[in-house]
Every structure is written in structure tokens, then in C-alpha cells.
């Protein structure tokens, strides 16, 4: 048996070796010579931090008590790693993208960079891990005590071990504040410890199988009770253990630290997917043989949890026992170191930093050195966590409560699982939902498993545990609502997970996520779709580059910040000076800071400088609104322009009409001056002859005077017509509507035009029908009829000329058609005949200025009728429309 001194000196030498390895790796990494430090093998070995002293020693103990049950603790992680493609790969990708520093940071970042969820997760992690750390201290002090020939104080041993671990952790865990929180020194030392663990346990196993026994057949033949391997063990507890251990690989802070945070290359995960299961396979391969050897070869009162040490000792193999001791020492120390790093990061990033930020209230660039503050808080946290573990060990050490704490801790951190899975796969999971789920699940865990595990020594007295609070049996902690589970662990797992998942789903569905949460949810859930080309979604913030640089320097250090900012400036195309303060710069800086101080604190710090991001839901809605408005505007403009086009075309049309009318006016003026000039000329010349001609014969003079009279009359008529048009058009004409006999009016007009027709030899075709009383002005109607008839005589000119006058009636409408058999009117001219001063083909006929038809039409319109040209007639066919006289209509 190795002496106490040998054990102490070996331990110290081993620790010195670890220090050297860690220091050497750290130095190499610093120079950029990573070599095999960054290989998948080191990564895989560092994962072995899963195998703590509890599994190293306790696995054999468990095998001695319940057979293959111990295998579940290793098969769970095997399942998780076999399924790396599903969960771990996504987790690692997200963590690399978001620079996640811990499991609390992951959840805080996903749920809107929330400080509160970070605090909750950190507290839970510390609460669940402290007993676990105490357990490691206990197993270390127990194993030391085994070798001591003098009476050692376990508390004292544990104290010095805790101090040594704190020193190592502070030295290599908080050497610097990095943008990606990776500790090459620690990881390499852990990898070395992993090898020691494996070699130690395998050596003991080989010694048992081939040294003590005679091969595998012999060792299993020695099995004291065949019932140990019965099917009994594969019950609900087996399923629960598989679930908890599979979960623990992701949720345990130290496992998250080595598997996710310390991962430098996603491809390492692919190697670890089979190599880590192989490692735990090898670890568990000899557990059962060692247990059998312990049960058969050692006194029955020997502690099965120490068989790994006592079996070689019992066989007199001191050096093998020393190796086994080093394996257990490695298992315990690696767990404590990594757990302390992970927990201190969480405590300092999620509890101390936010508190400090809040209390500082001033700009973080102006107040002290953040780096210094950060390192100090990390170191203080490490000491605090180890102190907590030690205190816990002092108060509960040796009790059975501590032995079962491993699985209790597993279930404690498993309360984070639903929120993690929700974070990765369900965009609808909200911050409120996650906080509620974690707190509710944790509360059920504490009530049903953690507190009862003290057997009434802590918070709940024994009678409450057996009878329920206030005697309410439905609330018995280990038979909640009367549920009967043989195993308290299974009972607590079922209840806490049910409550946890229900709370997450229900509260998430009922609560509203903030804009930042939605943004982060997208970045998390769709990480594989958006990694290739980063999305353009970024918070728009207004910060000065100088301030951002100052902040980066305070936390990341001058050199790192300078490199990062130069990099960004170069990518922006600037060759000197600081980069422009774009959204991309702030976002990149925030991520880099998140790698050091956690996303929530990084977000808070950058926001303190640059103001909070402006992508709020209302903002998004406003942007959507703006788009809608722009669309509406453009629609309106289109409509306007269409209207304008229409108006323009109308104006063009009107303009053309005006041109035409102006031309007509010109034509009229020349026409009218000509018309007026002709009679005026004759009047003047005859008047001159009369004035100068003293020798004129009286008869000749009388003839001249009568010509002057006729010409004057003609002039008067012409002026009357012009006057008539303007009066009618202005609507000032007084036309009364009285009952008029249509036949009488036609007869009157025919009589008036009869001489004209006879002179032209026109044949009149008219059959007067039954008399119709129309509403009209007798004289005006006659005037219209005469005008139309005389036009027909003047322009008809058929061979032989004929004029047809017809009357037809359609209810209260009467039509009088006057048609000739002449050449008719060309279609182009059909509208023009009703225009003033128009005479077709510029024919001039004495006594007309071309105003007859326009005047007639105005008269008819004033009589509520019309005068139109029938375009279908063989010759010119004018239609006069009239209303029949109606008493009622008239009185109205």
C-alpha cells in the first residue's frame, strides 16, 4: 500500500504536470501554433469531463447494487452524440454565430437578450451544481483518507483541495478576457486527465479480469447473484436515467462549456459523434467486472463506491491503486475546474455585470477599466463557487444525501432542456414562456426531489414528506396528486417535465414576444439557412465609431480591438482611421463583446452608447405602412396623370375647335363685309347719282330710289337676322309656348314659299293629315318652316325638283320632315350646316348670310324641340321635332 507521503507527493507532482501542460498549451495557442491542441481528439477527450468522480467511483458502486443500471448514465450521452446532426450541430453553429459563453447566455440571447432569464438560469445552475461540486470534494477527501495511515481531517483535506482547484482555475480559466471565451490551457489539461482516467480504469479492469480472475468467462462465473442482471433493471428508472443523462450532455453548465463553447470547429463534432461514445464505452466496459471482483473478493462491509481503489489494494497491487487514485483525482478535479469556469462566467456575465452596469449608470467607456472589473468578478465568482461547494460539503458531508446528488443535479439542469429545444426549433417560444417554464419546473424539482432528499433535515420536516403539508395527502412531495411511482426520481422527472413543458407551450402561446426576441428567434431557428449570407436585419443605432472603439478596448484589449476595427474599416474600403459607424459595425462589436461578457450585457453596453435598436414591431409596421402609402400615392399619381392626359386631349380637341371657329369667324367677317358692302355700294352709288344728276328723268329717279329702298330693306333684314341669332343664343328671346295648329302653320309656310317654288318649278308633295295641336310660338314655327322650305327650294335642284313634306307622330312627339331630291349634303358638312355664317360650297345667294338654319335650330330648341338633318335621306332631309300640346305639361 502506498504511504500517505507517496500519495501526497504523487498528487502534487501530478498537479504540477497539469499546470505545466496547461501553461505550455496556453503559450502555444498564444503564438498561434495550435498543432494538435485544436484537433478533434483533444475536443473529444475534453468531453470526458462528463465522467466525474461520481461516475468514476460511483459507477462501480451502482453496478454492485443494481447491475447494468450504471450503463444508462453512459448510454444517454451516447444517444445524444449519435444524434449530433440533429441538436448538437445546431447548438454549436448558433453558439459560434452568437458567441455564446454559457447555457445561460444561450437562453438569454435567444429570448431577446434578456437579463432576467440569464439571472434565473444562472441561479438554477449554481444551485444544482454546488452539491455536485461538494460531491467531488467528498470523493476526493474519501480517497485521500483511504490512504492515510494517520488520522486525517477530511474537512481539512477538502479545504486544501478546494484552494488548489481555485488557484488552477483562476490561473488558466481567467488569464484573459477573450472574444470567444476559449481556454486552450484548461482544455488540454482536461484532455490529459481524460487519458489518465481511461488508462486508470482500464488498467484496474484488465487487472481484475486477467489478474484476479481468469478471463471474462471466469469473472462472470463469480457473479454472486445472477439476479443482478435480471430484466428488472430495464423499467421506468432505466428510461428516466437514459433521458436525464442524454439531457445532461447539453444542459449541464460544464458540459455546455466543453461541448459547445470550447468547440473551435464544427467538424470536431463529427469525430466526437463516435469517438466520445467509444470513450464512455471503454470506461464502462470494466465497471461490471470490477464490481464483481469487489463483491466477491472484499469484506461485505466495504464501500462499493470505493471498489476501484480497494480492489487493487486488496490484491496487494499498490502502484495500480495509485494509478486508480490518480484517475479518480483527475475525474474530480477536471469536473470542478470546468464547472467553476462555466459557473463563474455565468455569474459574472449575468449577475455581476448587469448589477454593475445598472449601478454605474454612466457611460461604460468613461468608468474604470471594464476588463479589469470583468476579470475581478470572474475570479471572485470562482472563489465564491468553490467556497459554496466546500461549505455544502462541510454541512452535508458523509450523509447519504450527497451520494444521490448526481442524478438530482441532472434533473435540476434538465429543467433547461424544454427552453433550449424551444430556442432551437420553435420560433414561437417567448421569453415569458421560457422563464415561467424554467422556474415552474425548478420549483417542482425542488419540492419533489431536492428537498426530500435531505430526509427531513432541510426545509421540509419528515412528517410533511410522508403526509404532505398541513396533512394534505394530495400534496405529498413524493406522491404528488396521489401518483404512485416506485422511484422518487421517476416521479420527480415526470412531474417537473410535465409542468415545465406545459408552462413553456401555454405561456409562449399567450405572451407577445418583443421585436428583438423575434429577430433572435429567426437567427436561432433558421441558423442553417442564413449563415451563408447573413441577413440584412440589424438594429439601426447611432453610435460614434470613437465611442465604440473605446468600449471595445476596455473589454477586449487594445490589440484585439484594433485588429477588429481595422478589419471592418478595410472591408468598408477605408484604408486608415476608424470604420464608419454602420449597423454592421455595432452588430459585430456586440457579438464580439457577447463572447466575453454575455449577450445581454453586451447588448446593454452597446445600447448605452448607441441607444436602443429601432427595429420595434411598431417600426416594422410603420415601414409596412409607408410602403402601403407609397403604393397608394403612386396609384393616385397614376390616376391623376390619366386624368391630366384626358384633360389634355380634351383641351387639344377644344383648341382645334377654337381654331376652326376662328376660321369660320374670319370667313364670316369677310362674308358679312361683302354682304353689307354690296347693298351699301349700290345705295351709295344711286344716292350719288340722285345727288348729282339734275337732269335725271323723274321716272328714272323713282326707280333709283326704289332700288335704294330695296337695298336698305335687305340690309335691315340682314342686321335683323344677326340680331336674332345673338338674342336666341343668349336665351333672351321671348318665345311663348301656346297651342298651335300644326297644319295651319304648315299651310302658312307653304303659302309664303309658294311663289318661290313656282318660280323654281318645284313639285310639292304634301298630304295634310289630321290636325295636331303642338306647343309652339305660331310666328316662330312658321319662320322655321319657311326657312327650311326655302332652303329646300334653293339648294334642292333635283331633276325635276321636288319637295316632300311629311308629318308623323309618336306619342307626344311630332316630326315634320322636309326633304328634297337634290344631291344632298356631304357627310362632312352635315354638322356644319347648323353653324353660323356657313354656306356650303361658298355659294352666295342674295338675301342670306347663312344664318337661317342656326336661327331655326335655336328657335326649335327654345320650343323644347329640335331641328336635325336626317343623314339617310336621298337628298337633304330636315326633320323638325315638336312636342304635342298637353294641358298638364303646359301648366307645369
Amino acid at each position, binding site marked *: 500500500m502506498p504511504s500517505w507521503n507517496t500519495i501526497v507527493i504523487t498528487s502534487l507532482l501530478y498537479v504540477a504536470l497539469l499546470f505545466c501542460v496547461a501553461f505550455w498549451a496556453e503559450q502555444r495557442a498564444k503564438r498561434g501554433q495550435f498543432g494538435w491542441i485544436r484537433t478533434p481528439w483533444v475536443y473529444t477527450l475534453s468531453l470526458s469531463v462528463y465522467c466525474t468522480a461520481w461516475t468514476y467511483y460511483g459507477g462501480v458502486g451502482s453496478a454492485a447494487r443494481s447491475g*447494468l443500471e450504471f*450503463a444508462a448514465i453512459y*448510454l444517454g450521452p*451516447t*444517444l*445524444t*452524440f*449519435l*444524434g*449530433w*446532426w*440533429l441538436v448538437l450541430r445546431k447548438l454549436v453553429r448558433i453558439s459560434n454565430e452568437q458567441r455564446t459563453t454559457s447555457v445561460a447566455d444561450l437562453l438569454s440571447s435567444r429570448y431577446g437578450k434578456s437579463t432576467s432569464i440569464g439571472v434565473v438560469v444562472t441561479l438554477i445552475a449554481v444551485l444544482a451544481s454546488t452539491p455536485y461540486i461538494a460531491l467531488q470534494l467528498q470523493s476526493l477527501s474519501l480517497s485521500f483518507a483511504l490512504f492515510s495511515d494517520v488520522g486525517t481531517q477530511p474537512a481539512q483535506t477538502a479545504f486544501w483541495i478546494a484552494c488548489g482547484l481555485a488557484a488552477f482555475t483562476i490561473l488558466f480559466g481567467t488569464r484573459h478576457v477573450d472574444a470567444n471565451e476559449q481556454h486552450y490551457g484548461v482544455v488540454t489539461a482536461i484532455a490529459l486527465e481524460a487519458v489518465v482516467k481511461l488508462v486508470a480504469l482500464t488498467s484496474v479492469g484488465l487487472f481484475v479480469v486477467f489478474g484476479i480472475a481468469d478471463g*471474462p*468467462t*471466469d469473472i*462472470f*462465473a463469480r*457473479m454472486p447473484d*445472477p439476479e443482478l*442482471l*435480471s*430484466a428488472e*433493471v*430495464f*423499467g421506468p428508472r*432505466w*428510461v428516466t436515467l*437514459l433521458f436525464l443523462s442524454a439531457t445532461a450532455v447539453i444542459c449541464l453548465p460544464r458540459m455546455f462549456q466543453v461541448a459547445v463553447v470550447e468547440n473551435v470547429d464544427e*467538424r470536431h463534432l*463529427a*469525430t466526437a*459523434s*463516435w*469517438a466520445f*461514445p*467509444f470513450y464512455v*464505452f471503454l470506461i464502462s*466496459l470494466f465497471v*461490471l467486472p470490477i464490481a464483481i471482483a469487489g463483491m466477491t473478493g472484499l469484506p461485505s462491509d466495504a464501500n462499493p463506491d470505493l471498489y476501484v481503489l480497494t480492489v487493487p489494494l486488496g490484491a496487494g497491487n499498490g502502484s495500480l491503486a495509485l494509478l486508480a487514485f490518480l484517475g479518480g483525482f483527475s475525474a474530480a478535479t477536471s469536473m470542478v475546474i470546468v464547472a467553476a469556469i462555466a459557473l463563474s462566467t455565468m455569474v459574472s456575465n449575468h449577475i455581476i455585470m448587469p448589477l454593475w452596469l445598472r449601478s454605474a449608470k454612466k457611460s461604460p467607456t468613461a468608468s474604470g477599466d471594464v476588463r479589469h472589473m470583468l476579470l475581478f468578478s470572474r475570479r471572485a465568482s470562482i472563489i465564491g463557487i468553490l467556497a459554496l461547494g466546500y461549505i455544502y460539503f462541510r454541512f452535508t458531508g458523509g450523509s447519504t444525501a450527497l451520494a444521490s446528488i448526481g442524478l438530482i443535479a441532472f434533473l435540476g439542469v434538465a429543467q433547461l432542456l424544454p427552453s433550449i429545444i424551444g430556442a432551437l426549433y420553435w420560433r414561437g417560444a417567448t421569453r415569458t414562456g421560457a422563464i415561467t417554464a424554467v422556474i415552474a419546473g425548478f420549483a417542482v424539482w425542488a419540492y419533489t426531489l431536492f428537498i426530500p432528499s435531505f430526509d427531513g433535515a432541510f426545509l421540509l420536516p419528515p412528517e410533511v414528506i410522508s403526509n404532505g403539508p398541513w396533512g394534505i395527502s394530495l400534496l405529498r412531495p413524493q406522491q404528488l396528486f396521489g401518483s404512485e411511482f416506485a422511484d422518487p426520481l421517476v416521479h420527480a422527472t415526470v412531474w417537473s417535465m410535465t409542468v415545465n413543458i406545459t408552462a413553456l407551450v401555454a405561456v409562449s402561446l399567450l405572451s407577445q414576444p418583443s421585436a428583438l426576441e423575434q429577430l433572435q428567434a429567426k437567427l436561432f431557428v433558421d441558423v442553417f439557412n442564413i449563415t451563408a449570407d447573413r441577413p440584412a436585419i440589424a438594429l439601426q443605432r447611432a453610435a460614434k465609431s470613437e465611442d465604440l472603439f473605446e468600449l471595445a478596448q476596455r473589454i477586449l484589449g487594445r490589440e484585439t480591438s484594433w485588429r477588429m476595427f481595422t478589419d471592418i474599416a478595410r472591408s468598408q474600403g477605408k484604408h486608415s482611421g476608424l470604420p464608419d459607424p454602420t449597423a454592421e459595425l455595432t452588430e459585430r462589436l456586440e457579438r464580439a463583446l457577447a463572447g466575453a461578457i454575455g449577450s445581454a450585457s453586451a447588448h446593454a453596453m452597446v445600447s448605452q452608447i448607441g441607444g436602443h435598436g429601432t427595429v420595434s414591431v411598431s417600426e416594422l409596421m410603420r415601414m409596412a405602412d409607408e410602403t402601403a402609402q407609397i403604393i397608394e400615392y403612386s396609384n393616385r399619381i397614376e390616376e391623376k396623370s390619366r386624368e391630366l392626359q384626358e384633360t389634355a386631349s380634351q383641351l387639344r380637341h377644344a383648341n382645334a375647335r377654337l381654331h376652326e371657329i376662328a376660321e369660320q369667324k374670319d370667313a364670316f367677317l369677310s362674308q358679312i363685309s361683302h354682304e353689307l358692302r354690296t347693298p351699301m355700294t349700290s345705295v351709295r352709288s344711286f344716292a350719288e347719282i340722285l345727288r348729282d344728276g339734275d337732269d335725271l328723268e323723274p321716272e328714272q329717279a323713282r326707280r333709283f330710289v326704289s332700288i335704294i329702298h330695296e337695298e336698305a330693306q335687305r340690309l335691315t333684314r340682314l342686321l335683323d337676322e344677326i340680331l336674332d341669332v345673338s338674342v336666341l343664343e343668349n336665351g333672351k328671346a321671348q318665345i311663348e309656348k301656346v297651342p298651335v295648329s300644326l297644319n295651319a302653320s304648315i299651310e302658312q309656310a307653304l303659302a309664303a314659299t309658294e311663289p318661290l317654288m313656282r318660280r323654281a318649278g318645284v313639285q310639292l308633295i304634301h298630304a295634310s293629315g289630321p290636325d295636331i295641336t303642338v306647343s309652339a310660338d305660331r310666328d316662330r314655327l312658321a319662320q322655321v318652316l319657311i326657312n327650311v322650305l326655302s332652303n329646300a327650294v334653293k339648294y334642292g335642284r333635283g331633276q325635276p325638283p321636288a319637295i316632300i313634306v311629311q308629318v308623323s307622330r309618336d306619342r307626344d312627339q311630332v316630326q315634320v320632315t322636309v326633304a328634297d331630291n337634290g344631291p344632298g349634303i356631304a357627310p362632312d358638312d352635315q354638322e356644319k350646316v347648323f353653324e353660323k355664317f356657313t354656306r356650303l360650297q361658298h355659294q352666295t345667294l342674295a338675301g342670306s348670310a347663312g344664318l337661317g338654319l342656326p336661327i331655326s335650330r335655336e328657335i326649335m330648341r327654345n320650343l323644347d324641340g329640335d331641328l336635325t338633318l336626317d343623314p339617310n335621306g336621298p337628298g337633304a332631309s330636315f326633320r323638325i321635332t315638336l312636342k304635342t300640346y298637353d294641358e298638364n305639361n303646359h301648366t307645369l
Partner: protein
Amino acid sequence: MSQQEDIPRARKRRYDGAVILPIFAAFLILPPFIKLFAAPVTVFGVPLIVVWLFGLWLALIIIARHLAHLLTQPGDE
């Protein structure tokens, strides 16, 4: 030509395999199935359940290794 068409299909099969493997493994080590092997039978002196559990474990590791190798081939991301 046919080889080029086969590549995405082969890759799809690997992805499917990566998803199915843990589910399949869980089925094999969960109660109704694993209880079949907990019989008092020995294989070369070693209890059947021990041989089955560790043999299965090793087989899963070998499949996982093969799959990880396929999944990390260049151009597979």
C-alpha cells in the same frame, strides 16, 4: 451524367441516416425491446444481456463513425 444525379440522393440518404440512427438506437436500448435479452443465458460464459448491450453499443459506434465520415466529406455542408 448518372453519377452527378446520384450525388444529391446519396447525400439525402446520409442526412436521413443521421436522423434515424439515434432514434433507432433509442428503440434498441429502451424497455420493451431490451428486455428480450435479459434472459439467464450466457454466451461463452458472459451473460447474454452484457454481450448484447456492449455489442450493440460497439455496432452503433461503428455505424456512427462511418456516417460521420460520409457527412463530413467535402462539399457536404
